[in-house]
């Protein structure tokens, strides 16, 4: 779960060291053909906020957003475990879900508990909707066939023929998938080896690996221009699922591609063996 620290007009649990205690969320989801189920589990420790939930003056909020389909909605509950469903048709590709505790009504003279000494004894006028606790956010890909633990490269990257006859490969990030553009000459050679098991490691090491390093840099940049792109959501989900979000792009890309250098050497070795065998036959 990721949390962005912000400046609020009142202390918020989970926002830096504003308040003592914790608000943690464990989130699971199920992708069905007709429905997508969201199953959050909330754990809270903060006397004043626990009291507000008990008195039905605050709720756990799950805010769901999908940029691909102009969709944003929220679910409200006071239960520690809950299950919300959405029709599968309203979500596509990357779905972000954020967790909060919000006031259900105006709370004049709200006095937070376990507060930072800066806020000791201070009262706040809280309005309905105001955030009292943040539990972070995460994202998933609303696509049953996509497994972030075993992602095929083709789910976020494609290789196309360019219009230049020779010269370096180019990359287009402003599209559905990262598009690597090869010169006509390189494309012709690529077609000859595409799909051959021995060549896969070599292609991954020479073409996919450097591009993926660059793409991971983009995903780790909090102000990336490509945040809305489908490939961005997929790479982000893969990094999260494999626990690589905070790793250096160079290391993360190697883990996603399962050591492309070693696979490339194995491929070259096998190709040389084939050539030698042919020579002595």
């Amino acid at each position: 779960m990721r949390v962005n620290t912000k400046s609020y007009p009142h202390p918020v649990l989970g926002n830096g060291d504003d308040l003592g205690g914790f608000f943690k969320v464990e989130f699971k989801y199920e992708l069905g053909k007709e429905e997508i189920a969201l199953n959050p589990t909330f754990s809270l420790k903060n006397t004043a906020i626990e009291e507000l939930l008990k008195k039905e003056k605050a709720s756990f909020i799950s805010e769901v957003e999908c940029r691909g389909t102009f969709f944003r909605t929220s679910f409200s509950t006071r239960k520690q475990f809950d299950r919300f469903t959405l029709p599968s048709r309203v979500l596509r590709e990357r779905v972000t879900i954020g967790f909060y505790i919000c006031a259900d009504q105006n709370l004049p003279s709200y006095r937070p508990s376990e507060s930072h000494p800066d806020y000791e004894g201070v009262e706040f006028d809280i309005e309905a909707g105001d955030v009292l606790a943040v539990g972070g956010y995460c994202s998933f890909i609303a696509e049953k066939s996509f497994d972030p633990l075993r992602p095929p490269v083709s789910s976020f990257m494609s290789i196309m023929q360019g219009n230049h006859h020779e010269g370096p490969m180019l990359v287009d990030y402003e599209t559905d998938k990262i598009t690597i553009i090869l010169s006509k000459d390189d494309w012709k050679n690529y077609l000859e080896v595409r799909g051959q098991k021995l060549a896969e490691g070599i292609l991954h090491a020479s073409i996919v690996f450097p591009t993926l390093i660059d793409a991971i840099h983009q995903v780790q940049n909090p102000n990336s221009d490509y945040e809305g792109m489908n490939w961005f959501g997929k790479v982000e989900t893969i990094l999260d699922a494999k626990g690589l979000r905070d790793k250096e792009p160079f290391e993360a890309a190697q883990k996603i591609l399962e050591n492309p250098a070693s696979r490339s050497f194995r491929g070259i070795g096998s190709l040389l063996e084939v050539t030698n065998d042919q020579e002595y036959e």
Partner: protein
Amino acid sequence: MIKNMNKNKFQKIFKRATVEQMRVDLHSGHSLKGYFEASYPIKERGLLTSTIETPGKLPALKAPKKDPVSADVENSIALHGYYGDLDETQASDPRLWAYLSHVEFRKYTLARWGLDGHYSDLKDGASKKRAINQLMEHWFVSGNDRDLRRHAIARLWWASHLTYAPWEKDPEFFGDLKNKDPYFYTRILLSTQDIYQQVLERAMGRSSHVLITVLDYLGKNKEFAQSRENVRSLMKELNLVYGTKKIITLNRPALENLISRVASEITD
């Protein structure tokens, strides 16, 4: 004699690889000249037949030269009526929208979002780059709502879809807004280019609760809505509020009050 009464057909779309190649070709400037031409060379092997069922004849979209924005509402309603059964997943498919702008509604797209002048006017690299960026923005979709908002055809369909009879989609929240005209809020959204851009440009516009309640305010406060600066400030302020207050969780009267309060602070 039994006549086949079913005139429905299935919508053609481009294959994914076709769209990717089209983007590469435009990006390199290779196909730029073709965007000045009335017809588009289609290769059958680059097409797919989708599961989207369409009823008979395509609507004719209008693009009056003097005031193209004036036809947006009419076009949006016609398109939404024709593609009424599209669901959100289908309606965010880059293959569909690229096909519609390049093939089915090419004439309209050229008139409304085409390049001015002739290909020979694009003399240097900078002017070609500007032209390519403009075409990428209005003729292609990459799968996010920014692109859907800007695409020549997608923007029209989504404008109606997001605002069509909200009292039917969410009677509990919007029951008090019931109107004879199901496109009542579409007309407000598309009444000016500024309202469309400002309201949908902000992330909170993805919430139907926020979107419709803002449009309702603008519809009831026409003088306020006429000022580009007012609409821009309202959305900017609401966005700031959203940072600390989940206004999406508010009930309709509370949301309505909040919007009125923010708007009055702008005009005071």
